[in-house]
């Protein structure tokens, strides 16, 4: 599932913390992919090293139990600008 970063300051510390925290609530593995870089969505440090700015397109990929639910939940966070 592809999402765009709608936060003006990009995926900075605050949304990155929310994204990692929410991803950690699911038992499945969740990855974020940007231009071939593939990182662990449960790691705030991994997310920050994507340096995803405003308008960046990211893919959310999940594997394992409740994977679809996890993707849908995280996509909503992007759409709501992590508010």
């Amino acid at each position, binding site marked *: 599932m592809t999402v765009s970063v709608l936060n003006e300051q990009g995926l900075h510390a605050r949304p990155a*913390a929310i994204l990692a925290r929410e991803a950690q609530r699911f038992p499945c593995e969740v990855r974020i992919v940007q231009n071939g870089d593939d990182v*662990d969505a449960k790691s*705030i*440090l991994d997310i920050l090293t994507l340096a995803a700015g405003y308008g960046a397109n990211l893919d959310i990929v999940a594997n394992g139990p409740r994977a679809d639910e996890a993707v849908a939940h995280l996509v909503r966070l992007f759409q709501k600008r992590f508010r």
Partner: protein
Amino acid sequence: MASVILKGIPVSAGVSIGKAFFLNRSGQGPIPRQTLAPEAVGPELVRLEGAFGLFREELTQVRDRIPAELREHAHIIDSHLMILDDPKLQGVAGGYIRDLGINAEWALDKAVADLQRAFESLDNPYFRDRIQDVRMVSDRVQARLAGQTGDIKAVQNRVVLMADDLSPADTAAIEVDKIMSLVTAQGGKTSHTGILARTLGIPAVIGVDNLEEHVRDGNLVVVDGLRGAVLVDPGEDELAKYTDLKYQFEAYHASIMRGCHLPGETIDGYRVKVKANIELLEEVATVIDNGGEGIGLYRTEYSYMNRRVLPTEEELTEEYLDLASIMAPKRVTLRTLDAGADKFISLLGNPEERNPALGLRAIRLCMHHKDLFMTQLRAILRASAVGNVSVMFPMISGLREIRQAMSMLRAAQSELKQQGLPFDAEMPIGIMMELPSAVMIAEVLAREVDFFSIGTNDLIQYSLGIDRTNRYVSHMYQPLHPAVVRSIKHVVDAAHQAGIEVSLCGEMASDPFCVPILMGMQIDAISLNPQAIPGIKRIIRQATMDDCKNLLKEVLESTTVARTNRLVQETIFKKFPDELMFYSSLLDQEEGLAP
């Protein structure tokens, strides 16, 4: 240890004498490196987990203790908690202990080094700098591993709190009743340490070099928040001198605070409003406590600095609304963005300027970035719907700039009207008088606006052609140069002839030697740093307008700065012998009259 005197910047007045306590010692000593026997690996993992757990517990407590109005800072702590628990930190460090058989300190250091490489390769400076968050977290864990908790909770008696720097999270964690003063190694002008100290009414000195090196926990220290010094292990003579100074200052301070809520009025009934210059919302508490009669200058630059994205209209509106509604019904004067020159906003690019003080700054910069200016004007107007707000434009050199700024303001008003957003159509509009050109045509400008605010720092710089930060010429920065005094008088007279208000918001407004001269001119208001308000109010309340007018007359007749300074100092000392021992004056630079 012999007595050591460390110099720093005084940011909150007062003197304290007590035992030093160092918060969050950076633990920047060498990281111990050991290889472990196989049976030691298990316990080492437990030790690592324990140190992480200890810091997690403390950080969680800090977060839960943050009051609702400071929630803004809580997300920094949330991010630090997430970093603390990140698999890339504790997980990787644990892996190194298991796989390489090394001690916890070394393993954590290696995990951070891995992350450092990942972050270093990023182009975007915001994301690259996040390694600082990782370092902050790992330094604190290292300190726990080394058994130095650096925790203020362990302290029984009141201490002089020292730190490399105090973050908003640290300041929220401080139990204020255990702190007698604050000292930090870092610190700039908008340091939170200064604001916190002024809010608590305790002395503070920041920007002290080599603090950690010179001070051990438990050292006896004197903190001189009047002149910016920290004495470590003072001798008996120094201790006696400072005990005396502390007593005198406290007595003086208590007496000025008792009268600080009375109006600024001379014995013979002349009224001058005493307002505050601030740049952060948090400073409002000090303004109110110290008897400020409004905000005469709200510097709006802070919200634009150190940012990756310009502030939105909503964000600015919220900031200005908060300020206006806390101060209401007292007036809040918002100065539009005064950036450029020394206050540089990285987001607006870096124009190559050979002479930035004469370049793209203040109103000129805003007219160059009209979108940015429009956003700010809309936010100011929206705040005017709720509070008692006025706006002023900086660095106005002539009529054309006033008219351009006014037409932008009218455009913002009609946009808001169309969108059905409320604002005060009668919001007073003023200009900063800080360029010699504006002074010369003050009569003309006075017909266009509702008030003048004289910015003496820039007016002196531009009138005398002196850069105060240039050590070769700074001694020629002279507030009482006849040209400066006459310029100010000219502006005040022009304003009064046109029937508009005039105030003054430079450093002269907090200088006890300059204020009586300004009063002699019948200035309507002065605006100064909030901590200086009680002392200046007391001088006003003990003065008479006759004396001020006589002094002004003599000053205007004087043709040299040396004579003027001597005249002023003699007169004021005679008049207020008890008031002046805790003041430093702008005039000291020349005459060396500091106490």
